[in-house]
């Protein structure tokens, strides 16, 4: 969990490399995660994997994505394609957005950390897999709802 926290904020900070570092980091982490999942599923341990990773992963992965989004926003502000505004002005305008994204990622990570410490590590028979998977799915739906439907409404 601390590793994922460090990864997410490193992804944000690597936005200073014009976003290249962020993309590399996210790709690398995706590959690792995908490889681990593939290994478990091929071994027939899919349900165990879902019960283990879903409760905190449903929130932690979006947190990493949020932070890397912030990194890409920073990289975009640095690059400044199609913009006549000087670089310092671009950075000034994007600063509060970055802080908001970082704060959101931090909140997600804290929640994921709590869930991971006190819930995810109790496997069968203490906590049934179904309960954990349902919990994870509910979390995922909440995250999707939050990103999809909350916030300012645009009357287009």
């Amino acid at each position, binding site marked *: 969990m*601390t590793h994922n*926290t460090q990864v997410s*904020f490193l992804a*944000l*900070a690597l936005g*200073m490399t014009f976003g290249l570092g962020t993309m590399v980091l996210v790709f690398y982490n995706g590959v690792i995660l995908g490889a681990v999942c593939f290994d478990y599923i091929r071994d027939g341990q899919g349900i165990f994997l879902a019960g283990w990773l879903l409760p905190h992963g449903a929130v932690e992965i979006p947190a990493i994505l949020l932070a890397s989004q912030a990194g890409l926003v920073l990289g975009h502000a640095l690059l400044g394609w199609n913009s006549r505004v000087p670089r310092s002005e671009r*950075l000034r305008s994007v*600063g509060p957005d970055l802080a908001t994204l*970082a*704060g959101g990622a931090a909140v997600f990570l804290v929640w994921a950390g709590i869930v991971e410490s006190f819930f995810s590590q109790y496997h069968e028979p203490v906590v049934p897999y179904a309960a954990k998977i349902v919990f994870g799915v509910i979390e995922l739906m909440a995250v999707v709802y939050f990103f999809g439907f909350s916030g300012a409404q645009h009357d287009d």
Partner: protein
Amino acid sequence: MTTSAFEYLQIRTPEAIEFRIPLAGPVTRMLALFIDLCAISVITGTLQKVLGPFLKADSIAGLLMLMGFVISVGYGMACELWWRGQTVGKKIMRLRVVDMEGRRLEPSQIVLRNLLRFVDQLPAFYLVGGLVCLASSKRQRLGDIAARTVVIRHEDPFTPDLEQVLGGKYNSFLEHRRLSAKLRDRVSPALAGVALEAMLRREELEPQSRVALFSELAARFRAEVEFPAELTEQLSDEQYVRNVIEVLYRAPKA
């Protein structure tokens, strides 16, 4: 890269007032960082000691690691938010984080520059940040560039102790308001500083040098403003300079 000892931040406000503030170099900032790291380790150590007995071994390890991580990042943010751009280390080294254009420091700027420590401390011990700071024209590391901040050092303003110099004697120059104002207008701060230094150290000078120095200073001041002859003919050069210093450094009564 420049070779001057200090870099200065030049700010020109819309009212055409210019500020020149000295910037902090990477070495001073590194020293402040060491002090901050000590403070952070003290905080994490006390937290570990205090909370250790209360929580079970398993979950505590992860929680403590997270707390240590949060504190190391949050310490900078909290200190700089609370103390308007200073942490404990920066206070001791007399540095301060300010906005690049002299505006008010926004919280998002502080959050951003502390979050970007992750890339500044790569590969180890702030190597990337230090190199960028050295090479940057305003001594900014990557976090400063993104957040549009700079780190300045406070110059101690030298407030001269006038009483030991002036001794409370009557100064006829102060009566002549217009000439006094002209003197204040004409004399540069550097010259006033030199005269004050000479006055403060007059006892330590050799007698001949002392006479020569004060006659030269008096001649310089006479070249700027001519006070009426009946006042100055009875004054020695040293007394003349003493009067001039009082005119320059005493705030005029309204």
